[in-house]
């Protein structure tokens, strides 16, 4: 995959508000992740043909400091980010209803999910008052520190 291809993909992503893009071909794999305010992006390229990692081209490298509460200028939404590492669960148990779905109204103290780490279930609070507009992680998937979990339109 060449730099011009990567640049073309990034432009397409920006134009169509796509935040994450992954492409796997016969001999290479690329994953691009866009920050919402356009400032933070990460590139992961796994090219099995060449074993030498390519230094990040300048326009794609992430800034040293991530913004604390990224807010998309276009839509005014706030992200609820994971404060820990673990497995993401949308409900207190497999039989229960989800804590939060698209359209659920939340306030700062509302529990929106559980993240399980080392057999301990941790309740994740919204910390924002508003309405859930997007659920970003599938039930049962692992999450890392800072990973966006939900999008909320603040009220």
């Amino acid at each position, binding site marked *: 995959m060449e730099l011009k291809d990567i640049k073309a993909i990034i432009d397409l992503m920006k134009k169509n508000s796509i935040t994450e893009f992954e492409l796997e071909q016969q001999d290479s794999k690329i994953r691009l992740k866009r920050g919402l305010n356009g400032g933070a992006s*990460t590139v992961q390229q796994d090219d099995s043909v060449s074993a030498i990692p390519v230094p990040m081209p*300048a326009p794609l*490298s992430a800034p*040293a400091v991530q913004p604390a509460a990224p807010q998309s200028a276009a839509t005014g939404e706030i992200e609820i980010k994971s404060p*820990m590492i673990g497995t993401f669960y949308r409900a207190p148990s497999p039989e229960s209803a989800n804590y939060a779905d698209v359209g659920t109204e939340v306030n700062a103290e509302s529990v929106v999910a559980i993240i399980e*780490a*080392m057999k301990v279930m941790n309740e994740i609070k919204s910390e924002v008052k508003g309405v859930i507009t997007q659920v970003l992680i599938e039930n049962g998937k692992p999450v*890392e*520190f800072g990973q966006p979990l939900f999008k909320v339109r603040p009220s």
Partner: protein
Amino acid sequence: MFEKILVANRGEIAVRIIRACKELNVRTVAVYSEVDSNSMHVQLADEAICIGPAPASESYLRIDRIISAAEITDVDAIHPGYGFLSENAHFAEVCESCNIRFIGPSPRAMSSLEDKAVSRALAKKAGVDIPPGSDGVVENEKDAREIAKRIGYPVMIKAVAGGGGRGMRVAHNDPSLIKAYHTARTEAEKAFGNSGVYIEKFIENPHHIEIQILGDNKGRIIHLGERDCSIQRRNQKLIEEAPSPLLDNKFRKLRDKIGRAAVKIAEAARYTNAGTVEFIVDNNGNYYFLEVNKRIQVEHPVTEEVTGIDLVRYQILLAMGEPLQHSQGDIVIKGHAIECRINAEDPFDEFRPSPGRIEMYYQPGGRGVRVDTHAYAGYTIPPTYDSMISKLITTGKDRRDALDRMNRALSEYMVTGVKTTISFQQAIMQDPNFRRGVYSTSFVEQLLGGARRELIEEKT
């Protein structure tokens, strides 16, 4: 066989560990703080998990987050590298209780060497000389004065939980002793969470000689020869070499003696995996045990180059329960290796750290040149961590050969965008005393204070 290992570190050592894993066909998981998302170790690992914001206390030192990352990626073992949690016995215990192998000494070995005062007592019992000093933690001013009187000034006050050259103060008389005693305790509490200090005779212009050891879980210990790390600035090593020119030039018989003393101490501690036993040697060939570093060390490459043995790979195999593949007689030291640490610091401005974006980066190569680094063109060095960006190691058939090669390699090394200590290392390489192998730990201060400044300036 481990299927997957999590590397609980960053920078060049994380790259080193990932390489050893790849060569063993073991999959790797990198953990990283938010400012390290573009770091080389993240790029090289098979998986990467963000574990927190920049400060180490909220990321690389967070046991809970590292264990969580290990759980969701289902690793078999964790390699802690050096610094950070590598000598944290509690972390090693948590790993074991979560069924994750800790690649390093056993918790028991760690606790029998848990701090410097305990280690001194163990060495003394094993019959190895230690610098005269207190028997344990010095509890109060009165005791401090008595000990200083008994062993004679000058003395050194050291934090029992200190490491990496930090937490040490020298006193030449009673008033300065009392002042230093209290300052050292406060500093130790702040830096290491443990205000305990002990007192040792300060040996002027010592030579720092350390022995690399390896131990398996059957109790077998071997040593892989010495490294001479006497070239230091403010107790931070700058240059290391193997074998030691001091031992070669003056005290050949000491090599075996010190090696055997190191093994004796390791056996007394029931040590396993890789470690380093530190000694100081004075100008008369007297050697004294200092401490045991219970981890792989920054300067491990020079031992690798002269013995032909991959130490990080050995760590992984030993952690898997494999026995030592070598007996003491199998270890042969061939040739000479030198390592220069390259820091992002300005040697012309009191070695002020120089973080920032590396614009152009060209590292030396060719026969007998090895570079262990995480740096690359376009990489932004964050200000949050230590300033070492690279280790340049040259090997030659003898010391002269390795020195000339290091000169050649340093002259090729090009880094722009940040300041580095490359020119300073060149000045040391060309110093006549260094070339003769005549130096002690006061070498750098003398160099900086002396007439060599114009030589350093010439290089930029």
